[in-house]
């Protein structure tokens, strides 16, 4: 765990990583009908913590419960914390009703990160499905902040329909740049939609990258990640250059409780990011 960040004090964190910090909701942005982003600032007097792309926080909605949510902001911006949440369960249903000024408890950041340092000097293909774009957005920020360190950068994003597209304004901005290729596809659309229709893997053959010198970061529903990895392998990409991010029922966030165990891994501590070769045997098992 990266303890370089400041919370209460480093010593207090080390002593009790189960202790949440208080953050105030500074802004709420609805991305889609059921997905929203909270911009948060700390109110405990300590600095904002630093995080790496792919890490997550445990977010405590006081009196309701705690959930794991990926950090979706810019890792080089330590002025505020961004969390994009989809409304799916009891905690997120309550979280959606919070407004500017309300307080959340935050523990973290936890987990490993997308290894952007291993992609230096290589092509990078980022493939996201649905809400899977949220944990990958920090990767895009990071790659663009350090653009000269990477070769071609490609973002392929698939989601259910045009109204479910996350961060649509930002996707347009990135798409207008000359140093990143952005393609978006939806599973179905009305005939007014001018973009691609079809599953996200259909975009892979159109992407330009050198399979022998590429790192792929993939995040989305498990079945989408499995099919995406299989398609990347058809282009002779090595399995250990394909990274996927897993999600399980996180509780403690520090590898103690075992709720997020997957085979021999604790997702919160050993993950959430894994190379495909480590996870492929689990991705094809039903209900594991």
């Amino acid at each position, binding site marked *: 765990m990266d303890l370089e960040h400041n919370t209460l004090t480093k010593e207090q964190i080390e002593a009790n990583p189960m202790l949440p910090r208080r953050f105030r909701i500074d802004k709420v942005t609805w991305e889609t009908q059921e997905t929203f982003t909270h911009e948060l600032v700390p109110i405990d007097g300590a600095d904002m913590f630093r995080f790496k792309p792919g890490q997550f926080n445990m977010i405590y909605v006081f009196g309701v419960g705690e959930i794991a949510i990926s950090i979706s902001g810019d890792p080089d911006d330590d002025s505020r914390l961004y969390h994009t949440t989809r409304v799916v369960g009891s905690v997120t249903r309550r979280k959606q009703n919070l407004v500017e000024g309300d307080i959340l408890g935050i523990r973290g950041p936890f987990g490993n990160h997308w290894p952007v340092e291993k992609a230096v000097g290589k092509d990078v293909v980022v493939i996201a499905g*649905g809400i899977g774009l949220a944990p990958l957005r920090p990767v895009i920020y990071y790659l663009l902040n350090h653009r000269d360190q990477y070769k071609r950068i490609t973002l392929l994003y698939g989601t259910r329909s045009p109204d479910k597209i996350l961060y649509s304004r930002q996707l347009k901005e990135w798409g207008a740049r000359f140093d990143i290729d952005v393609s978006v*596809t939806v599973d179905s*659309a*009305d*005939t007014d939609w001018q*973009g691609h229709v*079809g599953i996200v893997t259909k975009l892979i053959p159109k992407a330009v990258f050198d399979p022998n010198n590429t790192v792929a970061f993939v995040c989305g*529903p498990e079945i*989408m990640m499995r099919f995406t990895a299989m398609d990347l392998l058809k282009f002779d990409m090595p399995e250990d250059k394909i990274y996927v991010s897993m999600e399980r029922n996180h509780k403690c966030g520090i590898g103690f409780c075992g709720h997020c165990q997957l085979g021999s891994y604790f997702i919160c501590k050993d993950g959430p990011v894994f190379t495909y070769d480590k996870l492929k045997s689990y991705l094809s098992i039903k209900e594991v």
Partner: protein
Amino acid sequence: MEDLEKIVSQHPFFEGMDKNYLELIIGCASNVRFDEGQQIFKEGEEANRFYMIREGSVALAIHGPGSGNVTIDTLGDGEILGWSWLVPPYYWRFDAKAKDRVRAIALDGKCLRDKCEENHDLGYELLKRFSHIIDQRLQATRLQLLDVYGLRT
């Protein structure tokens, strides 16, 4: 004709195909162009052609009850549009419309069906290539049906 031969032989769908077969196929081929928004074919019409898209994109749509016209797939450069010419009763199952300016090679399905009946090796070669496309689209459709991005309640 020489240009057409070059275009057809370089299209990914015909990659590695025997030159003799290519000659037979080129005899059924012609250059076509569609403007943005132009209907290429409509559901229920006779399917006597298929298209090798060279440039541009095509939307495949179907009319759903209560949902109007729904685009279910888009096809672009290097892809093949249409296989209803291969399967009786040879009617299009979807609408196809050019999303932007489309340049393509049209292949006369009736002409090809006759040639495949005369030359079963050519027919087998074409069917192998089409079955690959049909397999890819079936897998993609199954994933779309799973609605993997939908909410589970």
